[in-house]
């Protein structure tokens, strides 16, 4: 009974499987043999609620919320070590990206996780200028997650500014309208 309650609904399950299939070589993850090479290689696995191998097993068994509400996927720093080592040739880092995309679309995040906030803040800035503005990214990120953190990181910000390594202003690129058109088009295509 408990197990059934924890399993995700059929529709969420199907939706995720479909989303994962849409990425290049999207069905390959199903061939995972649970060897644990990924977790054994991962530099952040020690801090994860579930190792990457366990995330694969959870998804296979239909525990989608449990998998996505764990901190695992947001601790993936995209270093691709698991990808180059996987004996089944699964592009694990890409699977992590697919899961992050799905989590964002379905608003399924681990509690207190700030990584999705940073990613969304980054997207907003690129959509605004066409390029990143590191000063604005960090400022907006801390305002949304931890205003006190902004104060704490101010000395580093000032130090970077004194060394001409930080600017709070960014200009739109000339082809800004083109970026906007590309983004609007992808939205109309239903892609994200």
């Amino acid at each position, binding site marked *: 009974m408990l197990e059934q309650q924890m399993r995700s609904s059929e529709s969420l399950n199907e939706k995720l499987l479909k989303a994962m299939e849409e*990425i*290049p070589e999207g069905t390959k993850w199903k061939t995972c043999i649970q060897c644990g090479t990924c977790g054994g290689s991962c*530099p*952040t696995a020690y*801090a994860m609620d579930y190792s990457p191998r366990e995330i694969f097993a959870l998804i296979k068994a239909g525990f989608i919320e449990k998998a996505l509400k764990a901190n695992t996927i*947001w*601790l993936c*720093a*995209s*270093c*691709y*070590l698991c*990808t*180059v080592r996987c004996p089944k040739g699964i*592009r694990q*880092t890409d699977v992590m*990206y*697919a899961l992050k*995309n799905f989590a*964002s679309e379905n608003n399924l995040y681990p509690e207190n*996780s*700030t*990584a*999705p*906030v*940073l*990613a*969304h803040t*980054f*997207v907003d800035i*690129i959509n605004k200028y*066409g*390029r*990143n503005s*590191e*000063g604005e990214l960090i400022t907006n*990120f801390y305002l949304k997650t931890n205003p006190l953190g902004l104060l704490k990181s101010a000395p580093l910000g000032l*130090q*970077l500014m004194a*060394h*001409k*390594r*930080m*600017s709070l202003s960014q200009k739109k*690129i*000339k*082809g800004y*309208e*083109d*970026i906007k*058109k*590309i*983004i*609007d*088009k*992808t*939205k109309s*295509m239903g*892609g*994200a």
Partner: protein
Amino acid sequence: MEYLYYPGCSLEYTSSAYNDSSKAVAKALGVELKELEDWNCCGSTAYMSVKEFMSFAIAARNLAMAEMQGYKEMVAVCSGCFTTLNKVTRYMNLHPEMKKEINEALSAAGLKYDGTVMVRHFLDVLVNDTGIDAVKKNVKKPLTGLKAAAYSGCQISRPYGTFDNKEFPTKLDEILTAAGAEATYFPLKARCCGGMLMTTSEEVGLKMAKELLECAVKYGAECIATACPLCQINLEAYQSKINSKFGTNFNMPIFFFTQLLGKAFDLPSDNLGLRKNLIPTEKILAGVK
């Protein structure tokens, strides 16, 4: 020799020293880095995390512009941009459906990309096009006695390994050695610096950077040479925080490898952005015999 050059967002401010020193080193070697006009963000790991297709589409704008100008190659110095841009081309060519969709998105801006532009890392160009011999010939003040850990990082050779080993890259060591420095043993040379985790999971990020610094010190390095903006800033800007958290006393200069190479070429420090380094470099560079 002229190459089309893609600097990337980090090179505008936080890592402008990498931009300065790469251009200075290239010029000394007779290589011109011609900036892709009006480039935009490569997509990066952050954008890819929430809107993957959109990130591929905007990244493809850069590649489309390069292709339309007749280029077959483009040079990046940021390892993140290098991997991300190559990922787009690779996936488009492996998956015709994706190629079609990306072109549909690009068409809204009057652009088209056939997937013919190969993005190369500046380190690859130095080692394989210019060549180690040409680099050596330009060394006027060899970095004799300087013990440097060659920190390649992850994105430079993973996942594709286009020009270096995926798990134990050595090209950066070769360049440092050519510059007269001693590339110390550095077993964590391809380990992740933590990337954006320094901002989103500080505990994890600090531990990763600390382990890298510790490993460099353990095998006798007095400084670290990097080939990626994120590696450089994570290892340099957070050293004092690492020291107060772990009770360590790191004070290790973190260079872009092009800064060290430029020093060996005897180029003016201002052209190498050395004053932008947060941890002073004068002492260690003055010690070079």
